[in-house]
Every structure is written in C-alpha cells, then in structure tokens.
C-alpha cells in the first residue's frame, strides 16, 4: 500500500538527489563518511556470512575432525530431503507473517497513542516500551511463570472469570504452543515497532495536519493521505525489521519450548541450531542457514525495490 504514494510523498526526497548539482561528483567524499561502517559491516558481519556460505558446501562435522572436504551441494540435498525441513519452513513462514502483521498493526496503534497529547504522556511512553527493555532471559522466565498451567495467574484469572473451565497448557499443547509464542514475541517486539513509527510520526509537519483539517478531511482521510504516506519509510523499515528479527529470533522459541511439543514450534532457526549443536554437523547447519538467508535476502531485495522505487 505504501508504494503507491511514492511519487507524491513529501517524505522521500532521497530518490531525487541524483539530479542535484554536487561539486566533486560523488568522488571519494562519500566513502570517507562510509569507511567505518563499511569496515565494520564487512569484517564483522560479512566475513561470517561468507564463512557460512563456504561451510555449507563442505562436509564439516565436528566429531569427525580431519574429514572436512568440499562436497558441493550434498549438504543442501541432505537437508532438503529431511522431512523436518518442510515443516520447519512452514512454521517459519507462519511465524514471520503472523509477527509482521500483528506487530505492525498493534505497533501503529501504539505509536498513535504515544503521539497523542495525553496527560502523563512521558509516563505512558516509558511504561509501554517496557517489554522491549525487559531482557529476553527475563521475558522467558516471567512468562513461563504467568502461563504455568496450574499455578500461573493467567489461568487462575481466566478460570475465575469463567472464560475457561479447565486449565489450558499453553506451551505444552501442540495446538496452542505456536500461537502463544507468536503472541509473546509480539508482546516483546511491538514497542520497538511503535518507537520506529513514532519517530516517523514526529517528522510529519504539523502544518500538513492543519492543512488537511482546514480542507475538512476526517480522521480516516488524514490517516490515508497524511499519516501513512508520511511514515511510509518507517513502516517499511519496521516491517522488514520485524520479519528479519523474528525469523532469526532463536531465544523467543528455544527458551520456551525448544522447538516442541512434538516439533510444533520447530523453525529453520531452531533446526539449524540442532544440526549445529546436537549433531555437530556444521555443514548441514550452514546449509539450513543459507536457505533461510537466501529467502530473507530475496525479501530484502523485493522490499528494497518497492520502497526505494524504480529509480533509473
């Protein structure tokens, strides 16, 4: 939806920079600004990714030292024929899409609330971002407490309200484990999405709102023609981030269910972990990681061309 407003959006002048009269035409100047970032990204992120790519083409099993050798695509063949992979891939898609939709919708609503002139706004803004601040280690602990089937306050509350008549085993039941984990991940990460969107909302000039009001635009119109186009890039950034981070969110699953019950929350990330650290087969683990990475890379590219427009 965001892309249709590309041309008329006031908030995205970046794509028109090309025509500007720049004195020394690009030249070395941008690279001076970029050097630290490129060095760090290339060295600390780029090298491990290339290392992973190379490992995925090798027989590399820790418990067989000295047996490492190039084996082409055989790791890929092995993992692609593993029946678990298909289920894990499906769970990954489900997990990514559900997190994306929930976090964007709720994050937008939260950002709108944070943007309001409320009494006690500072308090409100600092309190609702708590889940994002609470460390993952602690999140797992608190929620396992809250969700405990017998002694957890959530079930006791639901029982007292008469909403349920017997205690559900949220994390131990095949049918609820995945939805519950998705909700927990949404709880933890929605504040981040809200902060990104709030930062976007704050850049919309007040004049635009006022002009729209004068034109007699109602709330839905302003949402559609002022707010959403105004934070288009923020929405896109938050969306991409949500998909990327939730798909790679290992702790959010492992600390609760370890991929269970009966594989109901197994994703490509937990699968790669198991290949690496219970089977010590780093070749296959890297192959799973590369498959996931290729998919996310594709998504980034699509995002990039949609958001950055069809310049040139």
């Amino acid at each position: 939806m965001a892309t249709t407003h590309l041309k008329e959006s006031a908030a995205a002048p970046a794509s028109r920079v090309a025509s500007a009269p720049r004195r020394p035409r690009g030249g070395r100047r941008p690279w001076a600004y970029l050097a630290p970032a490129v060095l760090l990204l290339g060295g600390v992120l780029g090298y491990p990714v290339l290392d992973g790519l190379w490992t995925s083409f090798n027989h590399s099993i820790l418990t067989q030292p000295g047996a490492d050798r190039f084996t082409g695509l055989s790791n890929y063949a092995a993992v692609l024929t593993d029946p678990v992979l298909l289920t894990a891939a499906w769970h990954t898609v489900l997990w990514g899409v559900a997190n994306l939709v929930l976090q964007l919708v709720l994050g937008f609503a939260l950002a709108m609330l944070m943007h309001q002139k409320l009494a006690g706004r500072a308090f409100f803004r600092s309190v609702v971002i708590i889940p994002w601040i609470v460390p993952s280690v602690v999140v797992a602990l608190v929620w396992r407490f809250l969700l405990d089937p017998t002694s957890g306050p959530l079930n006791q509350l639901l029982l007292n309200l008469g909403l349920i008549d017997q205690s559900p085993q949220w994390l131990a039941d095949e049918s609820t484990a995945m939805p519950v984990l998705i909700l927990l991940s949404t709880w933890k990460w929605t504040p981040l999405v809200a902060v990104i969107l709030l930062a976007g909302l704050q850049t919309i000039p007040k004049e635009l709102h006022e002009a729209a009001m004068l034109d007699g635009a109602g709330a839905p119109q302003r949402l559609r023609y002022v707010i959403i186009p105004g934070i288009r890039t923020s929405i896109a950034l938050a969306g991409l981030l949500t998909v990327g981070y939730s798909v790679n969110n290992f702790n959010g699953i492992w600390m609760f269910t370890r991929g269970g019950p009966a594989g109901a929350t197994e994703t490509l990330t937990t699968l790669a972990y198991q290949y690496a650290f219970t089977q010590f087969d780093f070749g296959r683990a890297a192959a799973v990681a590369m498959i996931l990475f290729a998919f996310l890379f594709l998504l980034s590219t699509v995002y990039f061309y949609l958001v950055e427009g069809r310049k040139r």
Partner: protein
Amino acid sequence: MSQTPNMRMSRRGLLRATGGIAATAVLAACGNGGGTGGGSGGGAKGTLTLWASTAFAGDAKAALRTAAQEYGGKQGLTINVEGFPANDLAKKITTALAGGGGPDIVVADVSSIPQFAASKMLVDVTARFKAAQGEFFAGNVAAASFKDAVYAVPYDTSNVALLWNKKLFQQAGIQSPPGTWDELLASAKELTGGGRHGYMLGAQGYGSFLFWPWLWQNGGRILDDAGTKALFNAPEGLEAWNFYAGLHLTHGVVPPTFLGVTQAWDQYIQPFLTEKVAMLAIGDWGLAPIAKGNPGLEYGVASLPKGKESATVLGGNAIGITSACKNVDAAWGFVSWLTSAGQEKVLRDGYQRIPARTDVGNGSMAGLDEAHQIFIQQAASARPRPAVTAWGDIEWQVMANAWDSVIQKKKSPRQALNEAATAATQALSRG
C-alpha cells in the same frame, strides 16, 4: 554559521577519525582485554583455566573454587574456575575449542564426553589414569571413555531412585512404596484423584532419559555392543515403552502438566513439592531443591520398582583435559588430586554429591542425610548409557521427539519407537 579554520582539515581529519573508530584501537583501549587472549588456551605456564557448570562453580564461595585455590597455592599454580549454566556448558566448550581457544580443564556431564573425545577436544588420559582406575566405579569409567580409551576422570556419580510422599501414601492407606511395576501402577491409581496424581513423568529429553531404566528392567538394550545399531525397539523395549507411555495415555495417573516439563528439573519436581503428585523417579540432584522448596515435605526414597530385573541409569560428571591445554602435566596433577580419596569431602560437603569412587560405601559418606543413602547403595550397579558420539542426538533429539509425539498423541507408541530406532541407527552410522 561562521567559517572556521578547521574546515580545511575536515576531510582528512574525518578520514583519520573514522579510520580510528573502525580500527580496533578505540575499542581495545576501552576494554581491559587484548593481549592475554582472554584466559584461553592455557596462557602462561603456571595458569590453568577450568570450566564447570554453575552447579559446581555457581558462586564465589563454591567448594570447587576453594579446592582449586588450595591446590594451586601448594603447587604455585593459578587455577581459574569459571561456571556456566549447564544447558550452555557443552555448547560453550564446543564453540571455544572449535574456535581455537577454550579452557584447560572441563568438568562435564558424562554423556557429553564421547562427543568431545570424537572431536579430539580432550586429551587421552588412559595411560595416566591406569594406576587409579580401579578406585572408580566401572560404569562411570565406561561412561567417560570412548573407543577403548579414557578421556576423563569420573568425578561425581548419580543415579535414579523413587521418591514417595509419605503423607499421601498414608491417606490412601498404602503401607510401603511399590516394589514392582504392577504395584507401582496399582498404587498410582489409588493415589490419583481429587486433583492429585500418582506418578510424574517428563516431556522431551526428560522423558527419554527416564525411560532407560524401564527398558533395562524389562530386559531390553539400547544399542548393540558395537554401538552401531539401535535395539530399543525389540519386543522387550516396546513392551516397556508401552507401559511407560500407558501411565499417561491409558491410566491417566500422571498430571497432564507433565507435557510442559521441557526446560529444567524444577518443572519436573514442582508437582511433587506441592503434593500434587505422590511419586516420582529422580536422581540425588532432586533432593536439594526439595529441601529448599518445601522443607516440611515428608517423603521416602526407594529403589525403582523392579520389572524382570532391577536397573537404574547412571549419570554424573567427569573431568577432562582439553586439547587447548599447554601444560597437561600440571592439569593432570590437579585432576588426579581432586579425584583422589582425600578430596571426596569437596563433593560431599560442598555439594551433597556422591564421588564416583568405590570407597564411598566405606562410611565416608555418612555425613550425607538418609535420603542420599539409597543413591550411594545403587552407585555400583547403576548402568551407564552408551558412550557413542551420537548419544546427545539420540537422547535429546531422536528419542525426545519420539516421546513427545507419543504423549502428544501424534503417533502410536509402536510407530514412534520404530521410527526412532531407524533414526538412531542412522545417526550412529554418521560416526
């Protein structure tokens, strides 16, 4: 905005400044690291690094630390003891050693020793250990060995027994803990009702670990002697598996919340602590949390009920010297001292644990409470799990998934067990 003289230097200055940031100079300056290589790989002569789980090295006053200091003081050695959460320890050791660093000495769960050994991460200590080998339980030595070589010295030993709630038994009019499978089932049925259940089980890896005694009690075996083929789905195995799963599936004597026991022994013990469950099978590691969590709980400890024979599973930790160690002689000196007859007090007084030494039956463990005594008696006959590379995969992946698919009613017990056997044999073939 006024023009300033430093405009001119801005580009060059910027280059330099940014280069400086990216280079590690700034970063290295702000940490106190650098140089030393971070205590990895032994470092200078006279310094040893030991990694253990937080169960052994959890706080500054841990007995293992004190012992290391005592020995180090005598020998002019510095022995650094670092503790890590048990769930992370094996991964942490693996990552560090694979990355070229790591500690000199590790205190690790015996079930992870074969994998370390196969990865050539531990030093073969067969020759050094020979003289003292007879002082240790054969089962613990076997568990710390791989392909006829010993890679670690047994430290503590543990095994599984039955804990039973005296009050609940009395209320149900049952005099003594069950001695056989049939008695167990009958008692469990009696004890179930009114929000309480008779027996406790675990999910995932907790379920598979606690299955082995049942398998052995029914005359079954986990693997063949060569360690190349899974045998646990033979008729005796299937019968034991059916009985084990039937406690939940057929008889409902297990609280349904056991499906959530996937992370820690705490979760497994909790219903017993709160008197929602009357019996559970657990090792001596369960005693301390019970004493702490519900000091008033009246319970007894008995051997596991018998099937065709009696059997319990052996666990514990062993101490190995890593391939990163540059001073194996010094490390061995410490390891042999720590596991010697004079030092059983570290385990006994510091951790209420039982040394894997055959002389524990001689009264040296009298200081431990009565609840521990049955575990001490069982130490000699407890059976080790197979020392194969793929063990972690078989127990915590293959069998854990099979058990989960049974208790989640996704597969029949027979189908799950047969598939697990095929998968286990396949895992064994990978080496």
